[in-house]
């Protein structure tokens, strides 16, 4: 496998990092950390080392890491308690692992029974006895693939009925038949009784089922693996009819394959230190320096887009090298910016890892048993975002534990498991990070929320809000449904603050609740607070930016699709549903804009707060990445605007806060028929940004 030589370098670099991780996590473990993530992390590292070792055929390393992994697996799910002896074994096992990686890298041979003592100890822990054969049986899976020869022949009866989804996922039953054939002798009987007459057949449906009889030496899991991708897209039943040769059951796998771990040799492992120390794969840099870099790149992006705008009508045939140079500058600027942004990306692990402790403390205080599961802690997000999400997450977890989860007794009475489950997960979706916090508690008491909302005058007596609206009222200012005040989440103070803080970051938060089953907070945030993709639109001669993630589509509505309610609310009918319109010129009191929506453009935007709404603008200018400049620090906060940016022509353009825009538009409808015009907002902004930040508001060239 020397053709893979070039990839081995990457593998060993990765190993060095992983072994470094293992060291760090082990020392956390030895100092009494109870964070379940520690064992998970060690497990993952060993697992990755094993997988690579398998790929590159380092059999001794693969076999050892397999056993090591088995031990870790049992420790992480609690089958083997984490004792002092256990931790000490982990330490020694990781030394052996380091030594094996090193020998694989330097291509030096280790004795066949190197590490066998540790293997023996692992085996005692895992199997309760020191006999290695028991362990070796499992080892077969990774170390060798051709052992099926020695196994018994089984007859499998397989009933397989594909569903339509199977085809939608581009799976193909005939390929499955072909793969089954590779396992042994196969006879297939199609079952056609579901087949409708030709005229009634739907090309997208699945009508044919199959019955297979497979005579094979393959194990059940190998047969099941054939159907790996389609298990949810078919009904499948596999029964093994008979073991034709049951005597083979006791057969032992030759242990010599994996470096003879059964040998009782007691050679002590060579006292090699971990290989990690020599390899430095990261450096620490002062955050200020990075911020400076990010700022400068931001300025560079603006300068570059200014240049390209000013030279856009340069005749290419006259200045070929100039035009090419500008194109390359654009490309390199973009790449530079992405690289710089990547420097600041960090896994959310740093925030997530604080949560187990919080949950432990809270559950003790509240006398509730809680399991915390974290998913996707390696999801990366800009450092500035990380700093900001810790508080909201803490708050939502407190809320879930205090208000969401029932007490132990109540849970048992309801037939729920004694320990409540809280899951916190992170993932990337559509250029944003989505963090969810869910619990299996009682869900939101909608009656109580509605009553409280009415009491506080948050909604009128006559209005009957939807379940979803009720649930999300917990984000309304000064809301508390807890019957009594606790010292954990106080008076429910905070959910409104949580929402406000998240919105200030350009994020959104909402809650879905299922009474009796639990609730789930969903928080989405931009990956970075420094740049974003924006759609530039124009209204009354001024340019505005609408964040691309909010945009569903834009259209010029035909007159027939426009309606107006008696309240003054304009609607546009799109594919059978009516969508409310907000007029940008009304919101910002702009004179001279197109007022008839049939003449203007409608940009459909979406938000968790209000669903879909249409923003009426004069024109779409185009899509571009914009550098975000804070309004608060340069001017003051303005309703309807989340931040500002500087366009290619040096002018400031406000970035719209679509949730606020929608709220303002609804308020305007309630308050007055039509607002009076006042001075344009954009002008005020230009001045103030130019004053406070002269290097930003570069005057337009030419």
């Amino acid at each position, binding site marked *: 496998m020397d053709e893979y030589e070039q*990839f081995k370098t990457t593998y060993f670099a990765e190993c060095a990092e992983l072994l470094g991780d293992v060291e760090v996590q082990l020392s956390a473990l030895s100092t009494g950390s109870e964070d379940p993530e520690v064992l998970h992390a060690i497990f993952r590292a060993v697992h990755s080392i094993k*997988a690579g070792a398998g790929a590159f055929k380092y059999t001794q390393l693969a076999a050892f890491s397999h056993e090591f992994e088995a031990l870790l697996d049992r420790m992480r799910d609690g089958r083997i308690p984490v004792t002092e002896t256990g931790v000490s074994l982990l330490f020694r096992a990781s030394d052996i692992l380091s030594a094996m990686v090193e020998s694989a890298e330097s291509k030096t041979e280790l004795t066949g029974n190197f590490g066998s003592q540790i293997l023996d100890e692992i085996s005692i822990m895992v199997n309760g006895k020191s006999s290695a054969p028991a362990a070796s049986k499992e080892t077969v899976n990774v170390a060798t693939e051709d052992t099926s020869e020695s196994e018994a022949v089984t007859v499998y009866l397989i009933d397989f009925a594909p569903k339509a989804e199977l085809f939608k*996922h581009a*799976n193909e039953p005939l*390929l499955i038949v*072909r*793969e089954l054939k590779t396992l042994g002798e196969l006879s297939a009987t199609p079952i056609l009784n579901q087949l409708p007459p030709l005229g009634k057949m739907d090309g997208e449906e699945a009508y044919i089922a199959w019955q297979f009889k497979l005579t094979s030496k393959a194990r059940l899991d190998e047969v099941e693996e054939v159907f790996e*991708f389609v298990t949810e897209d078919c009904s499948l039943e596999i029964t093994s009819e008979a073991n034709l040769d049951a005597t083979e059951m006791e057969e032992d796998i030759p242990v010599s394959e994996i470096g003879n771990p059964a040998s009782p040799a007691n050679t002590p492992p060579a006292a090699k230190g971990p290989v990690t120390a020599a390899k430095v794969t990261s450096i620490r840099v002062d955050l200020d320096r990075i911020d400076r870099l990010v700022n400068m790149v931001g300025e560079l992006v603006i300068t570059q887009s200014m240049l390209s705008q000013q030279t856009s009508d340069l005749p290419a045939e006259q200045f070929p090298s100039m035009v090419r140079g500008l194109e390359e500058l654009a490309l390199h600027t973009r790449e530079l910016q992405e690289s710089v942004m990547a420097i600041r990306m960090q896994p959310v692990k740093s925030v997530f890892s604080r949560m187990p402790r919080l949950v432990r403390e809270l559950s003790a205080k509240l006398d509730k048993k809680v399991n915390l599961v974290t*998913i996707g802690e390696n999801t990366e997000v800009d450092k500035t975002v990380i700093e900001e999400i810790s508080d909201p997450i803490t708050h939502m977890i407190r809320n879930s534990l205090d208000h969401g989860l029932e007490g132990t007794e109540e849970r048992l009475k309801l037939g729920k498991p004694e320990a409540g489950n809280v899951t916190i997960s992170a993932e990337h*979706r559509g250029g944003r990070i989505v963090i969810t916090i869910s619990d299996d508690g009682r869900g939101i008491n909608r009656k109580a929320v509605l009553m409280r909302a009415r009491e506080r005058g948050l909604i009128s007596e006559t209005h009957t809000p939807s379940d979803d609206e009720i649930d999300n009222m917990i984000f309304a200012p000064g809301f508390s449904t807890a019957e009594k005040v606790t010292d954990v989440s106080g008076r429910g103070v905070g959910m409104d603050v949580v929402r406000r803080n998240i919105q200030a970051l350009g994020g959104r938060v909402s809650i879905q609740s299922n009474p009796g089953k639990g609730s789930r907070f969903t928080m989405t945030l931009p990956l970075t607070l420094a740049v974003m993709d924006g759609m530039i639109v124009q209204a009354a001669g001024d340019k505005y930016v609408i964040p691309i993630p909010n945009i569903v589509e834009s259209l010029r509505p035909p007159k027939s699709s426009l309606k107006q309610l008696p309240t003054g609310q304009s609607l546009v009918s799109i594919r059978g549903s009516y969508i409310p319109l907000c007029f940008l010129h009304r919101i910002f009191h702009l004179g001279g804009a197109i007022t008839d929506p049939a003449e203007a453009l409608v940009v459909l935007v979406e938000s968790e707060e209000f669903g879909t709404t249409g923003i009426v603008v004069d024109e779409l200018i185009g899509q571009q990445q914009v550098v975000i400049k804070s309004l608060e620090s340069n001017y003051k906060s303005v309703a309807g605007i989340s931040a500002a940016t500087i366009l290619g022509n040096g002018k400031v353009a406000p970035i719209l806060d679509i949730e606020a825009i929608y709220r303002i538009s609804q308020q305007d409808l309630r308050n007055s028929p039509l607002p009076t015009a006042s001075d344009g907002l954009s002008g005020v902004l230009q001045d103030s940004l130019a004053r406070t930040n002269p290097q930003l508001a570069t005057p337009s060239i030419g």
Partner: protein
Amino acid sequence: MGKKVLAVDDSKTMRDMVSFTLKGAGYEVLEAADGLLALDALGNQSVDLVITDINMPNMDGIGLVKALRQNPAYSSTPILVLTTESDDSKKNEGREAGATGWIVKPFEPEKLLKVVQKVCG
């Protein structure tokens, strides 16, 4: 043989590894570094298989699967997503978006070939 495979991954090492393994087995391989570039690289030409990583800048793997499935030209093209160990949620997300199957990273070359043959013959 000569089947055409599009390999999409932002890590060059991973692309190299996939590409090298598949080319060795007689496949023709196109490469792209993220979902948007993958759509660019495809144009509208047909391929026999798409293998894509999930976490990528600009357009991630899930986005790519969705985009491809919406295009009638690729509605029945097998798509494999590369996932990491123990990440069942990603597998499911991929499936829901319309992926055909998955390959767990890090994978052995033999395993890759086996799965590729499994879905595109």
